[in-house]
């Protein structure tokens, strides 16, 4: 409560004094988006929050240049994306399909899971399977697909974050989906044969 009151006070103060976005207004408006971008890449709540903190620290270090920023949302999204990629590279937590449970085992548990009791577990396993499938994609396709799963970003904004044309984003998303479907089909075929 006290934190929200402080935040509101700071936001009102910043709105009263300046028209340009401040760090406080960016935190208030886009912290969820920053967290989701970080989570889509790091797949861990703690790491995602650390990345969000680091992202806003980077913004705060360049707060003098905030007035020059044209699109604060995509600018912030790009900072969040690069910060998260840096964190993932440094932590070496890239998962592969060979780690832990195999894809077939995940597929079996996914189909056998009872919807009422094990819904949460089934969802988690589904996400783990998808995470491993995405990790097996080429890096450019995987990164584009990860950003596309963040609800706050459309393809134009993804293009601005990744500094590529919007058409390239669509092409990458199409190729990424195609490869994922092929992998899923293979897994389903393996399950049928077993």
């Amino acid at each position: 409560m006290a934190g929200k009151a402080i935040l509101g006070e700071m936001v009102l103060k910043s709105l009263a004094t300046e028209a340009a976005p401040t760090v406080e207004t960016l935190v208030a408006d886009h912290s969820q988006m920053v967290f989701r971008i970080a989570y889509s890449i790091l797949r861990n709540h703690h790491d995602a929050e650390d990345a969000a903190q680091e992202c806003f620290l980077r913004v705060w270090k360049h707060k003098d240049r905030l007035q020059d920023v044209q699109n604060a949302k995509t600018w912030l999204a790009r900072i969040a994306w690069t910060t998260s990629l840096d964190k993932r590279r440094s932590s070496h937590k890239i998962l592969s399909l060979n780690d832990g449970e195999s894809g077939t085992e995940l597929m079996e548990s996914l189909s056998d899971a009872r919807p009422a009791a094990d819904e949460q577990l089934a969802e988690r396993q589904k996400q783990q399977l998808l995470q491993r499938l995405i990790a097996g994609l080429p890096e450019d396709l995987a990164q584009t697909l990860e950003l596309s799963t963040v609800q706050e970003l459309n393809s134009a904004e993804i293009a601005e974050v990744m500094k590529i044309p919007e058409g390239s984003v669509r092409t990458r998303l199409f190729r990424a989906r195609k490869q994922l479907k092929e992998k899923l089909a293979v897994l389903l075929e393996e399950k049928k044969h077993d």
Partner: protein
Amino acid sequence: MIDPENDRKMDEMLDSMLANYSAAEPRPGLETRILANLREAEEKKATQGWWNFKWIWAGAVAAAIIVAAVLISGGHRVAPPTNVIVKTRQPAPQPEIQPHAAIAPKQVGKIHRREPSAAPTTQQNATLALRDRPAVFPTPTPLSEQEKLLLSYVASTPREEMIAQSHPDEPPVVGEQDQTEAIPDLTHIPQKLSNTR
């Protein structure tokens, strides 16, 4: 040949999986934690900035002290000896000719005596020599008692008498034997030092 029905099912499955891929919610209070972190960073930076500022001032003050000390010590060392001489050299007062005879030899002795020192440097010697040197050369000294008497005698005695007295008296005529006895051996007579110049 790709089965369209199967492809549609795969699409639906993939969409459902991707829909929740990044639908993660942060723990409550994320904004507060981020703002608190930013405030902490700002305070840390402000503190660091103040300390940096303080250290800059301390360094500047230390540098100023060092420069001042160097200048002061260097000024003493580098000062040319001519300046010292000029400073110590004052218009020497004319030594007064005092009528008292007993003081005169003392002053003369003082003037010409070289004062001994433990290890006098060249600069000190030069300074002392300049200080003791009289302004007039040759040094005027007061007249002695005999000189004063002679002057008063010359002043009061007529000139003819002076000329007459300047001729020596003729020796008395005596025999050859008496002559040798009459003339004393001058070699044994102690000669007195004259005070006159």
